[in-house]
């Protein structure tokens, strides 16, 4: 432990703490600009300089390791002059027009630092050299006039996301933020994760969707889990006057610590499907608006029960809805088929393995954040589950090896140490190679990489799970043992794991069903599902948005979309997290739960509402815990 004095306060910190961290711990405020708690300290902006007794010059507190007996002064006259000097230079370097910038007035860290120093004017005027504005990207605008060259975006794109799109060209006063080798951002290798937008302290990188729509003082925050995939990142949904303004990552979230992907951050605001606002009942061949009463009447008349009834639910819906759904249709109506829209594709085989071994075998996503070798099976983590992909990509520069085994093209292949062809019996062969060596060079190399690694990790997703037979899965478990590896199973949608726990994983085969109940939520139905349902004479759909499926249905009930409902989600590594309601639904639109309860009441059924108990109905692939 180290003892030092900051502004007269004594504080004890651990070895390796920087002076800035020590000051924070002591409750002493030191202004910063290029610093961010998620990034390695940079020491570029020189705003955090402090006076250290005995040092030749002022020292940057963000990078200076605290040492025993240090005496630090953070507000001597020298320090205050230095801060004003740095800020004055920064304002004069580029064109910082506060009057019409959308982050001006509380959201700009540069401006706020100037306010902190009571700056009422600029001692140095800018040189009025205009800089490029890059508006080529669909979601972000890069305005070099407002850039303070703090490199937070460059470091985030590299250290947090591992994409390394943003960088700097030229040197000195000609330094410029560029994408790749100076191409427009919209044509670059940018994957639109938006981390740079979130981390930019000024208005240099801004979000197009929410520009001018809401400053910090105007908006409300709703922090909850993202419902786009089974990673389960925490995100902050910003609303204003019951409108979605922007989605941001939550820097304090333990799993994703601020990271999101375009699916969770930008795409939800691009929703353009028609919204369903009233119940619809088919009369004389076409769907007509009706009251809830009329719709429930029609459901009672046509739904049926037992054999001939199929019920399918979206895995984007909260566990509460899914448990209620199961209780109503499986227990209450004893429907012939009660399953999810995914039909168990990402989970069935693995769940069966857990059933057989009675032992959870998968590990937490945190293992992926600190691994020295990754074997990825039929998975690229580039189209979906991107944040898990970031965990891998960002370690590749530090020596972590990546083995990609895929039967198809894999988008991570060009970053991989080794690309292998994934065929059936692959894991069997690999296990053999680990134990006895192999004739196949590729598999041999993979085996030696994994054997040498101290913390190897095997990652697989639904494509692997769907084709894996018992023997392959056995091999998987044995590999885990032999290599002391962690296993990470990527699971599909936000609640695919919950659906699996509830047993909603049977396939939907055309079996002459008479009626079907589809709890679609806000999911986009697949063509396959639409086609399959065309064979069913009576279809009831619960959906938020109109689609071909609802267009073909006999009864349509309007329900909430993801932002209008709260609920619990079980992510791929067993964390139970809450999604938080951010918007009020339009009048007349109910949540799936409320709709189900209405139906249950109508049919005289009292469904089970203890979803927690129903989650325990089978052994999970990974222990479930409340996050």
């Amino acid at each position, binding site marked *: 432990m180290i003892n030092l004095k900051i502004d007269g306060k004594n504080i004890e910190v651990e070895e390796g703490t920087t002076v800035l961290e020590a000051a924070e711990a002591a409750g002493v405020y030191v202004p910063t600009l290029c610093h961010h708690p998620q990034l390695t300290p*940079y*020491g*570029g902006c*020189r705003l955090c300089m402090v006076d250290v007794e005995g040092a030749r010059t002022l020292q940057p507190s963000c990078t200076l390791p605290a040492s025993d007996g240090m005496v630090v002064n953070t507000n001597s006259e020298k320090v205050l002059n230095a801060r004003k*000097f740095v800020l004055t230079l920064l304002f004069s370097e580029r064109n910082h027009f506060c009057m019409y910038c959308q982050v001006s007035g509380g959201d700009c860290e540069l401006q706020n630092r100037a306010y902190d120093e009571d700056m009422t004017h600029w001692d140095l005027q800018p040189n009025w050299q205009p800089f490029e504005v890059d508006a080529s990207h669909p979601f972000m605008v890069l305005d070099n006039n407002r850039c303070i060259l703090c490199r937070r975006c460059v470091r985030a794109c590299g250290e947090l996301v591992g994409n390394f799109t943003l960088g*700097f060209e030229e040197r*000195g*006063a000609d330094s410029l933020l560029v994408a790749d080798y100076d191409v427009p951002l919209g044509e670059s290798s940018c994957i639109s994760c938006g981390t740079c937008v979130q981390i930019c302290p000024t208005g240099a990188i801004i979000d197009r969707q929410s520009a001018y729509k809401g400053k910090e003082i105007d908006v409300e925050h709703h922090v909850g889990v993202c419902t786009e995939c089974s990673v389960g990142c925490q995100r902050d949904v910003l609303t204003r006057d019951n409108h979605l303004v922007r989605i941001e990552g939550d820097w304090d979230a333990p799993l994703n610590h601020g990271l999101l992907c375009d699916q969770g951050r930008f795409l939800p605001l691009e929703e353009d499907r028609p919204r369903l606002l009233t119940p619809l009942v088919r009369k004389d061949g076409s769907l007509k608006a009706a009251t809830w009463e009329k719709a429930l009447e029609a459901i009672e008349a046509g739904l049926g029960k037992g054999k001939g009834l199929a019920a399918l639910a979206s895995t984007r819906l909260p566990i509460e809805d899914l448990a209620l759904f199961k209780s109503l249709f499986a227990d209450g109506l004893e429907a012939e088929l009660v399953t999810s829209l995914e039909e168990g594709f990402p989970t069935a085989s693995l769940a069966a393995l857990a059933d057989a071994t009675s032992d959870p075998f998968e590990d937490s996503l945190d293992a992926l954040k600190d691994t020295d070798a990754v074997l990825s099976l039929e998975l690229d983590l580039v189209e979906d589950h991107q944040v898990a992909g970031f965990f891998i990509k960002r370690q590749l520069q530090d020596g972590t090896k990546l083995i990609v085994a895929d039967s198809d093209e894999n988008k991570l292949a060009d970053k991989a140490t080794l690309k292998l062809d994934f065929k059936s019996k692959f894991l069997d062969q690999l296990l053999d190679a680990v134990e006895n060596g192999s004739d196949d060079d590729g598999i041999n190399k993979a085996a030696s990489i994994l054997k040498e690694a101290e913390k190897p990790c095997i990652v697989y997703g639904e494509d692997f799970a769907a084709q894996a037979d018992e023997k392959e899965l056995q091999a998987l478990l044995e590999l885990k043992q032999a290599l002391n590896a962690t296993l990470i199973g990527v699971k599909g949608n936000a609640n695919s794991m919950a659906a699996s726990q509830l047993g909603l994983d049977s396939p939907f085969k055309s079996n002459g069903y008479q009626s079907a109940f589809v709890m679609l939520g806000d999911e986009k139905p697949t063509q396959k599902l639409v086609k399959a349902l065309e064979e069913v004479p009576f279809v009831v759909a619960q959906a938020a948005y109109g689609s071909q499926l609802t267009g073909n249905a006999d009864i349509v009930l309007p329900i909430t979309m993801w932002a209008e409902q709260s609920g619990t989600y079980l992510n791929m590594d067993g964390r139970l997290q809450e999604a938080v309601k951010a918007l009020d639904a339009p009048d007349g639109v109910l949540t799936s739960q409320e709709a189900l309860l209405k139906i249950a009441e109508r049919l005289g059924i009292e469904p089970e509402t203890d979803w927690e108990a129903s989650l325990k109905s089978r052994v999970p692939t990974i222990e479930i815990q409340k996050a």
Partner: protein
Amino acid sequence: MKAFRSMVLVSSDPDSMERGALDVFSKLQQQIKAYDLDEEISLSMISDVSKKGRDPLVLVYPDAVIYGSVTPADVPHIVEEHLYKGQVVEEKQISPYDLSGSVAWLSARKGTLPAENRIVLKNVGLIDPEIIDEYIINEGYQALGKVLNEMTPEETISIIKDSGLRGRGGAGFPTGLKWQFVKGAKGEKKYVICNADESEPGTFKDRLVLEGDPHAIIEAMTIAAYAVGANEGYIYIRGEYGLAISRMKKAILQARDYGLLGENIFDTSFSFDLHIHAGAGAYICGEETALIESIEGNRGEPRSRPPYPTTKGLWQKPTLVNNVETLANIPAIIRNGAEWYKSIGTPSSPGTKVYTILGNVNVTGLIEVPMGITLREVISIYAKGMKDGATFKLAQTGGSSGSIIPASLQDTPMDFDSFKNAGVSLGSGALLICNEDVCVVDLAKVLLNFFRFESCGKCNPCRIGNKRAYEILSNISEGVGTLKDLDDLLMLNDQLYELSNCGLGQTACSPLHDILTHFRAEVEAHIKLKICPTDVCPMSGRWAYQIDGYRCNGVSLL
């Protein structure tokens, strides 16, 4: 190796080559063979001993005769008269004092001049750097042999510490102490780096060692690696030094061939190998942490220190970074002992220093003299006085960010401590001597332009402050400066010193500060009287850096 009675050396620098040195060389070869002298006379090409306009040169040893502007037509006559009959061809002979920009002082020099003491430049210009045997014959690799076979790493460090050798890259840090830090640092894997980035304007001392005596560096780095416990090293040579890079590459290959690099050197358990990394045109990469970043493949931006490279350097491993000149001293110290080294120079700064003499003097070039001679001695004795009888006005020591020395400080002994006490810096040893025709505002402007251009851009004060200072000086040189500008410049100097991330920013404005201390009246003349006393500055009365709002059509610089 054969013994020859005469050595004939032909200069092979780019200028000489352009003027047909190769033809001269082949003609000499042909003629020497024709006279049947090829068993007695060794003929080689050597590195830069040129003076513009006098290339190519042919030097004959041990006669210490230099022939200038030699053409193939001159060759038969020279070979017949001098090499065959022994008579110097006086009409082609040039005085050694006419040579500049290189090692021009031949050991057979007569006269009352204090002898140079060549330790660093011992072999430069006297051996063929592309033949390893010539290095070996001249006590080459003896020090390495001694160290590996007779000394422990601790003893090696001890002798360097005792010798008092201080870093010659500019900072003057005690070398032995640095070696000890790296030795004591935690970790198995360590690196040794030779900083051959030499980008300081006016300095080319390292280039001569790299081109003329590459094996000295290889030997020194191997000794250093043994002492600190490293087995891998890098030589970071600036990209512009094409000849140095190719010669060093060749030297490394030859050393490996002879078992002097690689596994089990001298049949001991010690292994060491070297890589060459070429720079790409950034002055900032001479700063040791920026150099390390560059080797790692990142932008050459200095890191925050602490931690220092001695604990966390290349790939975060303990790394020793030494300048070429510093390393070139090592073999000699090992061979001759610490006491010998301490007997040269001054107590606080033992040994010699290679100075580059530039500017308005009669003889420019490199000299290697013991530490402690004064500037006046340098000018009057070695540089043979100010050119055309001009008056000394100022000298800049130590490179572009070095101190400006007015006439009053000419008698300060040039060693690290005496200089520091007088408030000036010795730096890397470039001595720019200026006469009364040099305008101090123009000089400051040129220096600041250099720093503005070379700033890496990581930290705000240096990136923006240097540009501002340059703009202010440009305005002063156009005659539109104000007295407030001088206060601003001094303020920029103070703040840049306090706040910058590395030495570039910290010292960029210090020549300016010296100028304002010693030559303020001249600067004020530009402002108050709107004249340039030396008639150098444009003084057009127009702003260099302000935009005419009406005429500007907004053409961006991008």
